[in-house]
């Protein structure tokens, strides 16, 4: 009995995705639109399996992963640094915040022509776009996280002779961490999302390329496959962020199991 319950509980989050797949199979098999533009899950699974088996998928994913991670590192790093800087120094906040708020609102799609002119069509242009996209969520959550740390604790740190660096390390950073994790969770999503634009720039590899190329050439099965891959990445990113949170926020009772 107990065992059954645990399984049900474990399956609960997958109920809805499963339901979607079932409805999809059902509607698709009715052939309201041709299977060419809206294939059944079974077709997708076959395509997926084929691409896994011949290693194509792994290849695309690997190259995307590389671009994504480098971009995350750079953009996340800059976002974190700017968030910390602007939360700590009012001057820096005044100087940079407006610009960041403006830049973050520029669509990557519109930026591509300029990126090609400035950075070219190589790897760096793709990494640049990922970094740009990832920067903002990390920035804004770091900033707000730090600003929302209780001033009482900062006062305590000051009176206890903590240097600026120590106050940051022992008080502001740990206090902001839950918020920074929300930012990271976003960033992990944005990181992949950006690739769909970035990987239209003169490349024939990567998940973004796969999706856009499939769209170009009417390969509905691959479009949907890429959607599913993206969705799975979303789940993985979320698990990763949760797992990190679990490790680093042990003290936080609001941590959600």
């Amino acid at each position, binding site marked *: 009995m107990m065992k059954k319950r645990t399984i049900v509980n474990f399956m609960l989050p997958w109920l809805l995705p499963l339901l979607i797949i079932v409805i999809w199979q059902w509607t698709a098999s009715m052939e309201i639109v041709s299977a060419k533009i809206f294939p059944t899950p079974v077709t997708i699974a076959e395509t997926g399996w084929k691409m896994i088996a011949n290693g194509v998928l792994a290849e695309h994913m690997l190259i995307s992963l590389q671009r994504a991670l480098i971009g995350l590192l750079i953009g996340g790093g800059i976002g974190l640094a700017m968030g910390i800087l602007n939360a700590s120094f009012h001057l820096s906040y005044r100087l940079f915040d407006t610009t960041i708020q403006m830049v973050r609102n520029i669509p990557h799609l519109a930026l591509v022509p300029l990126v090609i002119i400035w950075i070219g069509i190589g790897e760096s242009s793709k990494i640049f776009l990922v970094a740009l996209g990832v920067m903002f969520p990390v920035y804004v959550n770091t900033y707000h996280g730090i600003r929302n740390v209780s001033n*009482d*604790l900062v*006062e*305590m*740190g*000051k*009176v*206890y*002779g*903590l240097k600026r660096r*120590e106050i940051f390390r*022992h*008080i502001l950073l*740990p*206090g902001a*961490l839950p918020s920074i994790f929300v930012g990271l969770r976003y960033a992990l999503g944005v990181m992949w999302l950006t690739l769909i634009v970035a990987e239209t720039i003169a490349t024939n590899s990567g998940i973004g390329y796969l999706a856009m190329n499939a769209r170009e050439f009417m390969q509905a099965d691959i479009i949907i496959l890429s959607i599913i891959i993206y969705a799975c990445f979303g789940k993985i990113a979320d698990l990763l962020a949760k797992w990190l949170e679990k490790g680093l*926020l*042990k*003290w*936080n*009772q609001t941590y959600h199991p």
Partner: protein
Amino acid sequence: MTRSAVIPEGKNGVLIQIKAVTKSFQQHDVLKRLDITLYPGQFTSIIGKSGSGKSTLLKLISGLDAPSEGDILLDGEALNGISGSTTMMFQDSRLLPWKSVIDNVGIGLQGEWRPKALHFLQQVGLENKADQWPSTLSGGQKQRVALARALVRNPRMLLLDEPLGALDALTRLEMQQLIERLWLEQRFTALLVTHDVNEAITLSDRILLLEDGDIALDMDIDLPRPRSRTDSQVGKWERQILDRIMRNSS
């Protein structure tokens, strides 16, 4: 009831001079042209009604807040921001929820601080809680951790804002003895805010009563130490001060 010249020796402590200090919030003057001199190594208690400005005064002396008018001098130098020689125990415990109890005690300490922090945790009776999160502590336990955190750093000036308010009689007594012992050893300048008149008398050289933003009473307690809370002399002082407090209010 005027200030006599009983200045205890204390090369270690800080000289605190408060000169015509006013502190206002919005239109309201909480402290009004206050003049106090606290001598190096002196143990002073501040008593006063809730909301009379005791915490505000401590915050000014610690440098966390600035007076609206007037100056505060430490060892003759004008205070500007936080001075390195001050330690303050806040009215609320202000423990960092993300650090274990012992890490809270040791925060900001340099070098091999663990044995020392553990020693002070033991002094406040909480060595067995060293590795717990603060959120699992009882109210009085939190307060004692905060006390240990303040005492561990050998300050030259110690500001205590109702440090024992959440403790039972026995624990309170033990903590009083701990504070007195450390003070006798190190002779820092001590400023204690308390609601327990008996506690003020047993511990301090001098008692200030804050009323309407001003010093209404400034008394030297020249009883020999160690003092006992049940001592008849202490009782006499206590009654006298309590009478003064009660009388004025009605």
